[in-house]
């Protein structure tokens, strides 16, 4: 809480430093009339001072906030009596620390409060308060020191603009590197946990096993908790739902893109195109609700009246609704590539006497095909990674089946079910989710790279 106030104080200090730096620069040049003596505009001296006052202080504060808790906890545990800490596993120690923390913040404590824990909690509070005050003092001191440094350096010959601009450039470079850091973070975090998982379960079993039941036995004699991690049923389930969605989305999306770009009247297009794109803006959780409460019961009733046995959470319902969600995706990507086909190709075909549909089927579509395929690949990657619709409308049971009326489960559903709720970080069940995540990431990444390169190559062709 106090950190937020401190941050505001530092920001205010930066604003103050800006004014001070500006005034100082003007004064050092000998008054407002002699600004031309300065190397840069006064504003830049202000910014220079503000950066010196703010940046080191903010960086230090970030570090402090990040590390304070760990250091305090370390100090508190090192002061705990030896017989309490000795022989405790990491998990037990974590529980003890949690207790101390809860007691200190006035929350409910799991174990009974011994005098040792009470002292530790008091110490925790005291150290935290101390650290808080120290942070204020140190951060403000650093800000002042920065300001003082800038004050001393400010003289007409200081190349303030160059300094400020190179700092800004460095900040911009850092910002753009965040994209790389994100990818790196995804790969490292998922890969690291997956490696831990593959130490417990062999990759062979994971990628080729046909039995998925991630419940780990708590006791040796527990029934139905074998802890089998064969992911084939998840892969087939994912493929089935994606296939159904593609069967819905590709024909409807492609045909409507063709109709809207080649046949439709301008006014029809002006209404129909944005209407279809509404579908892309609707949150997936809404589709999930629609699939689970409207489409699935409808399909079930329909199946019952036809004498078919339909699961209440069928792959068909989830796939259908996912298809609806992906229609605008396919249609807008195809629309782009169809419009990119040069008019001269069409004119040539008409000149030979082809009808409009013949032109579209024999000339326009073949010319646009790489782009369309790229778009469909992107759509497939979307379908595979889609989560909420399948979580809400597809089932949890890992059936190895080819019947779309059965309930299936998907990779994303299992990631969600394995990771929601409180879990230990090192159990095979939790780690399995990361292995699934790694698989998902690699597959979608491959699809995206292929699709994007096809689309890009195609675009260059006609430009």
């Amino acid at each position: 809480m106090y950190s937020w106030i401190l941050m505001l104080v530092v920001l205010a200090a930066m604003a103050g430093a800006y004014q001070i730096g500006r005034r100082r620069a003007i004064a050092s040049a000998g008054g407002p009339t002699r600004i031309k003596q300065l190397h840069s505009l006064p504003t830049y001296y202000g910014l220079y001072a503000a950066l010196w006052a703010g940046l080191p202080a903010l960086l230090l504060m970030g570090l402090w906030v990040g590390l304070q808790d760990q250091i305090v906890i370390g100090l508190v545990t090192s002061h705990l009596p030896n017989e309490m800490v000795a022989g405790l596993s990491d998990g037990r120690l974590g529980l003890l620390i949690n207790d101390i923390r809860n007691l200190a913040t006035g929350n409910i404590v799991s174990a009974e409060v011994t005098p040792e824990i009470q002292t530790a909690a008091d110490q925790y509070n005291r150290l935290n308060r101390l650290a808080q005050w120290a942070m204020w003092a140190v951060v403000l001191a650093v800000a002042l020191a920065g300001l003082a440094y800038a004050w001393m350096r400010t003289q007409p010959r200081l190349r303030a603009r160059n300094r400020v601009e190179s700092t800004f450039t460095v900040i911009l470079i850092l910002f753009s590197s965040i994209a790389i850091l994100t990818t790196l973070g995804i790969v490292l975090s998922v890969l690291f946990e997956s490696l831990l998982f593959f130490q417990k379960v062999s990759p062979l079993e994971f990628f080729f096993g046909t039995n998925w039941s991630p419940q780990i036995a708590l006791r040796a004699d527990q029934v139905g908790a074998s802890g089998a991690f064969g992911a084939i049923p998840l892969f087939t389930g994912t493929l089935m739902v994606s296939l159904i969605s593609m069967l819905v989305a590709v024909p409807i999306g492609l045909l409507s893109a063709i109709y809207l770009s080649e046949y439709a009247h301008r006014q029809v297009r002006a209404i129909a195109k944005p209407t279809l794109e509404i579908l892309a803006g609707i949150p997936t959780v809404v589709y999930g609700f629609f699939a689970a409460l409207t489409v699935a019961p409808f399909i079930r009733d329909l199946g019952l009246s036809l004498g078919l046995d339909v699961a209440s959470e069928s792959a068909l319902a989830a796939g259908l609704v996912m298809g609806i969600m992906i229609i605008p995706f396919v249609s807008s990507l195809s629309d782009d590539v169809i419009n990119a086909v040069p008019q001269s190709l069409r004119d040539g075909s008409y000149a030979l006497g082809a009808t409009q549909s013949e032109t579209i089927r024999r000339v326009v579509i073949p010319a646009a095909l790489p782009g369309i395929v790229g778009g469909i690949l992107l759509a497939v990657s979307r379908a595979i990674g889609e989560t909420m619709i399948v979580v809400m409308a597809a089932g949890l049971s890992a059936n190895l089946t080819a019947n779309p009326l059965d309930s299936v489960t998907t990779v994303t559903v299992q990631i969600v079910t394995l990771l929601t709720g409180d879990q230990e970080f090192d159990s095979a069940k939790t780690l399995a989710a990361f292995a699934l995540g790694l698989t998902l990431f690699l597959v979608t990444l491959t699809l995206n790279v292929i699709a994007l390169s096809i689309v890009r190559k195609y675009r260059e062709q006609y430009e």
Partner: protein
Amino acid sequence: MNNPADTTPPRRAIDIVNASLKRRYARERRFRWLGATAVTLGMVFVVLLFADIILKGYTAFQQTYIQLPIELAAATIDPDGTRDPATLARADYMKLIREALREQFPEVRDRRDRRRLNSMISVGAPDLLRERVMADPALIGTTQELWILADDDIDMLVKGYIDRNAPESDRRVSDQMIGWINRLEAEGRVAKRFNTIFFTHGTSREPELAGIAGALMGSFYTLALTFLLSFPIGVGAALYLEEFAPKNRWTDLIEVNVNNLAAVPSIVFGLLGLAVFIGFFGVPRSTPLVAALVMTLMTLPTIIIASRVALKSVPPSIREAALGVGASPLQTQFHHVLPLALPGILTGSIIGMARALGETAPLLMIGMIAFIVDIPKGFTDAATVLPVQIFLWADSPERGFVERTSAAIIVLLAFLFVMNLAAVLLRRRFERRW
């Protein structure tokens, strides 16, 4: 010509064409019809989706109340007459409501029946009554005709979701209760009133007490922080990539990365958040803070791509003119190019924010699905967000949650609509063709 077998004229190309024309035109019509059907189907899906949600949800904006003459007896509420808020807060308001209900139905004497009678009132009604009395202590000692919140089963009955003609064993409301309700309705003591609870309360296990205020505040904090983080970072990154970056391996790598991140499944970002932000950096779970960090990483590619397009559309002459009168490259960008590109950048950012508002999957990973009744008051309070609330309610078995889920969806869609409208208007108002 002399050969009698050769009487048929030679087949000319035009004859072949003419012969096939009918077939070809029919095919043309079929193809056209197919395209039109596809477009119509797409539109039908849009209409179906909205009609379904609105029809399911509009009733949740009203809530059933039962009017009862409640004697706010001073002996029960404030025996000492001190009007001390602590005493007022502790009093047994349920007793007052039950007594009033008993007076309405003096013939109900059996204990089991009485319990059933009491179950027509929401368990949250006493709290609402307490708030009422504490806001206006002058009511104590008087008898007031008050509207008391009904239980969700009664609410469903009054709204017609429970079929009164179905066999008694098939519905959640017994014949006896229907009789009582009919009598109250005949006396004009049952009414549907605007459901303020839905907008002012946090979530609850009881449908009639569940509201979206907590989720809305959670969404607000998350989105605000997401915007504060992702807007400067996204614009800065776009500026660097578009205007300053030398063409080399590193910037190529960044480009490919940005494009790919835009297509990474959102749930993978949830895994990243769980492993890195929560597991490694120790950011508290279930808070708008960690949600905003994950959302920032997710929306960055969108904002970067949109900003780059906007920057690209600013003509080079602007840059050349600025550089020509002696501006530095950074001055050129910040004083001239960026202001001109700002409408486009803002449009892209709003669309990115709209997407973040509707995102659910990654938030499930980072603990936003905890059951949190309190309305969050800051970035580090445990919170949930609107789409996750929808997901949680959709999972609840009570019939009353179906309409509330749909109503929450309507609210969510309304916010998305406003955001997209703002983006479109912004584009219309400030778009410049050079």
